[in-house]
């Protein structure tokens, strides 16, 4: 086969030929055979084993580390005017390259955000239940003004908890709304149950390996409780919030295997788990909520 015909076969394979050339290729069995030979080459070449996730994680972490070490002036000097796609494209490329390891630093940040959101929602639901109870008590006592004021207070609380919106100001309708909110937060918690369908675990942090487990636990230990909770003006107070949080954690997430601190629910691989910390042995432990069976453990950094 001469070079011209090979060139033609190669161009045919890449669908980069004219109509005349196509007819010529398809009318010549020798060229078609060459096309098939080149197609086999392409198939063999493209069959590359993907790099291990740990390798990709390490590479992305190193790249992000390099970015963080860049002088601030240089980082901010990225010419967005002439490179509209510059940083954004990098981010997109990073995301796309990841069949999909998430950058470690992003992973470290994510658990707190997500677990805070869960706790905030749960705390808001608890506060609404209390508010509803108070409102019902007051309305049954017949004090219209008092009921209105309690409803206003509940509305103010609702403003700090978007999960509970919309809240009807009428006191007698507060309780069902609050129950609905509680049901919502309970649905999130069922993610740790073994029997829960996979779809319910979507909101949980995904831990792929022991490093993720250690990071998830370490992030919880290193950060103050619920740092992202917006400061409540009228209610609930910080004390109420932290009481609500610990109440919910204690109620829904069992302490097993000698853990001292329950960090929160997560998905370890495909298994819904509770992550806890054994302070004495400096271990992060992932275990099943229903059976307390250990899924993974790792020494904390």
């Amino acid at each position, binding site marked *: 086969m001469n070079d011209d015909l090979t060139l033609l076969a190669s161009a045919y394979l890449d669908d980069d030929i004219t109509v005349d050339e196509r007819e010529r290729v398809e009318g010549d069995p020798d060229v078609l055979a060459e096309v098939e030979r080149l197609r086999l*080459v392409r198939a063999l070449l493209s069959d590359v084993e993907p790099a291990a996730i740990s390798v990709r994680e390490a590479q992305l972490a190193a790249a992000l580390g390099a970015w963080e070490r860049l002088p601030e002036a240089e980082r901010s000097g990225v010419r967005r005017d002439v490179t509209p796609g510059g940083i954004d494209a990098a981010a997109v490329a990073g995301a796309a390259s990841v069949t999909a390891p998430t950058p470690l630093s992003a992973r470290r940040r994510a658990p707190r955000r997500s677990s805070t959101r869960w706790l905030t929602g749960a705390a808001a639901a608890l506060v609404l239940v209390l508010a509803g109870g108070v409102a019902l008590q007051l309305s049954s006592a017949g004090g219209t003004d008092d009921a209105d004021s309690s409803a206003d207070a509940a509305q103010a609380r609702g403003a700090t908890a978007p999960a509970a919106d919309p809240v009807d100001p009428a006191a007698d309708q507060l309780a069902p709304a609050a129950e609905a909110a509680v049901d919502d937060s309970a649905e999130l918690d069922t993610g740790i149950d073994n029997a829960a369908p996979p779809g319910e675990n979507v909101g949980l942090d995904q831990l792929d390996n022991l490093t993720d487990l250690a990071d998830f636990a370490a992030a919880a230990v290193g950060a103050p409780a619920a740092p992202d909770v917006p400061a409540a003006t009228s209610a609930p107070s910080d004390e109420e919030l932290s009481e609500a949080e610990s109440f919910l954690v204690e109620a829904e997430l069992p302490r097993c295997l000698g853990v001292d601190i329950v960090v929160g629910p997560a998905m370890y691989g495909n298994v819904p788990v509770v992550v806890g910390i054994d302070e004495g042995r400096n271990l992060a432990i992932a275990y099943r909520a229903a059976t307390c069976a250990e899924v993974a453990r790792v020494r904390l950094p």
Partner: protein
Amino acid sequence: MCRRIAGSTRDADDACQEALIKIVRSLPRFDGRSSFGTWAYRIATNASLDELRKRQRRPALHAVDEEHRPEAVDPAADDYTERFPDRLVLDDALDRLAEDMRVAVVLRDVADLDYAEIAEALDLPIGTVKSRISRGRAALAAQLRLDPEAAPEIRGNQPTADERPIDPT
């Protein structure tokens, strides 16, 4: 892409790491004259070629032929080594390919860039790119002794183990 240009997994990992760091460090100087993807591929190609050249300067070992092959202690390990030659043969064929053809073929068949993107990444005319891809594919097909009629038996048509150099890494 790094794997196919650099040759070995370890070199490819190093190349990929190097490329990512270079991309990040060079971001402030990226001027947008080419697309981000093309620019990134160019960096990755250069990093992979650097690793390839380093590897080519290292001495290569040769595989043991079937007669002198030690008995496998672990049968599972034996299964793994049964599959290994396919990869080695392809790596070897790529190794024998001239660098310019190798890069062009890999950018087309692995990275799936079109001719124009490859031309931009390599700073070459499109005609040259087409020619390199065509000649590169044909050379690989010849080295791999590919026969479309016997595609499932590709393995049987390939050189024997003792003909192939093995990367010491």
